[in-house]
């Protein structure tokens, strides 16, 4: 059996999306900037996709700028706003549980003379709006808070933080890459000025992301060049990917409630199944305020990458925030910032469910994973507890 439980890494492409993309790989290959029919049809296709993406997050089509990825959208947002507003002040705030594309953009700004506050989080990985308030200075121009953590699933109190930002005339960005298309995301309701999203997180293609920028807000481009995207993001438009993103957005909007209920049901069963069959396992992140398909754990005495490989050997695909499973060979900063000690962070394992997963797959995982844990604990010098150290 195969069970893909790593939807936070990427989603399979919906066949309906691929179908819609195919013509743009074939006859409809024109450059969207060309004045003739072949170009105009490409442009129309892009504008239709823009409407669909806008509709998914409840903004105007003109407020959507297509990018090549969530990481690009995040870099664009953070650096583009910090630069555009640098005459007002040079202080920005991001949380400690942001994606690397936010954290490292913020560090780049730090090296360029900006001051950055990395906001602490509680044990659930949640930012306290009161903490945000405390760190605001007259120089603060931008706050960026992730919508939902891809590592522990926790959903942040964006509304409250947005209100605080607004009161202080601070621009508010959210990285909604892991949430958009998976839970309701409404920029008006969230009160955000900018929002990043990526198509591959809702069954759209890789290579397609977007940044929502509230009308009237000036942003400095990340990629300079021609007039594409209203002069705000240059480069020949990736028409098939943009078309795919549009269709994926439309499907996500239509099927959202259904998909959420489906993955939540499976997720809840998985959590009960695993925590009742495995000793010394902790559920991480917020128990309620979290992505519906997201189940993240710390399994004591064993290491994440080893779990992933044994799971994959059984056809089950999952993720981990352990040092060994990352190329950077560092335990997830998100887990550490939540106060989790390093040795426990090594035992991180994350199952993220998708619309096409089935109950059989979940039951299969509940059967197999405890055996894997047992096997790895057999091998571990800590099988009787952490005191068994070297």
């Amino acid at each position, binding site marked *: 059996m195969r069970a893909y439980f790593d939807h936070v890494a990427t989603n399979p492409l919906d066949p309906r999306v691929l179908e819609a993309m195919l013509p743009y790989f074939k006859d409809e290959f024109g450059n969207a900037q060309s004045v003739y029919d072949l170009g105009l049809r490409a442009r129309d296709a892009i504008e239709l996709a823009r409407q669909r993406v806008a509709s998914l997050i409840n903004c105007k089509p003109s407020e959507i700028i297509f990018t090549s990825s969530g990481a690009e959208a995040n870099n664009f947002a953070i650096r583009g706003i910090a630069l555009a507003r640098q005459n007002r002040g040079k202080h920005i705030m991001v949380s400690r549980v942001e994606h690397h594309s936010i954290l490292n953009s913020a560090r780049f700004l730090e090296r360029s003379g900006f001051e950055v506050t990395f906001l602490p989080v509680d044990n659930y990985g949640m930012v306290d709006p009161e903490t945000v308030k405390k760190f605001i200075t007259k120089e603060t121009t931008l706050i960026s808070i992730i919508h939902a953590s891809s590592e522990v699933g926790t959903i942040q109190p964006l509304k409250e933080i947005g209100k605080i930002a607004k009161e202080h005339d601070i621009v508010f960005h959210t990285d909604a890459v892991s949430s958009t298309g998976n839970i309701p995301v409404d920029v008006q309701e969230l009160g955000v000025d900018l929002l990043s999203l990526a198509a591959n997180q809702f069954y759209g293609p890789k290579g397609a992301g977007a940044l929502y920028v509230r009308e009237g807000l000036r942003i400095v481009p990340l990629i300079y060049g021609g007039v594409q995207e209203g002069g705000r993001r240059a480069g020949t438009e990736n028409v098939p990917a943009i078309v795919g993103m549009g269709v994926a957005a439309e499907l996500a909007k239509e099927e959202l409630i259904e998909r959420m209920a489906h993955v939540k049901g499976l997720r809840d069963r998985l959590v009960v199944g695993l925590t009742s069959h495995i000793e010394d396992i902790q559920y991480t992140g917020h128990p309620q305020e979290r992505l519906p398909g997201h189940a993240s754990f710390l399994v004591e005495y064993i290491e*994440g*990458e080893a779990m992933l*490989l044994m799971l994959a050997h059984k056809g089950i695909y999952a993720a981990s925030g352990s*040092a*060994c499973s990352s190329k950077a060979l560092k335990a997830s900063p998100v887990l550490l910032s939540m106060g989790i000690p390093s040795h426990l962070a090594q035992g991180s394992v994350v199952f993220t469910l998708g619309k096409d997963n089935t109950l059989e797959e979940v039951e299969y995982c509940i059967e197999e994973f405890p055996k894997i844990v047992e096997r790895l604990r057999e*091998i571990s*010098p800590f*099988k009787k507890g952490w005191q068994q150290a*070297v």
Partner: protein
Amino acid sequence: MYSQKLMEHFLSPKNVGEIPDADGVGGEGNPVCGDVMKVYIKVEDDKIVDAKFQTFGCGAAIAVSSMITEMAKGKTIEEALKISKEAIAEALDGLPPQKMHCSNLGADALKKAIQDYLSKRKTSEDVN
């Protein structure tokens, strides 16, 4: 990323466990960094007649542990001390660059086990 040989040693590691009456025990690593290996050896006439391990770590760490205990068995103390991290990696048909530290740990844990044996022998010789 990992060779087939490595995956075999990871999925079906050899020599897993403790040797309760081991002649030498060596541990290396730290759970904070991600890998801990513990090697147990049984020595007769300066020859390693049995070796076992316990490892907390990634796939490579477990495979290295399996391989190094296999390589140690049957070797004299002197020969076993010469097992290099490169030899371990090679025996596993290669290790990804970022995983080379695992074979370091393995070689070091074995050395510590041998040193433990040697220092114990010295102590017992001193006593006798």
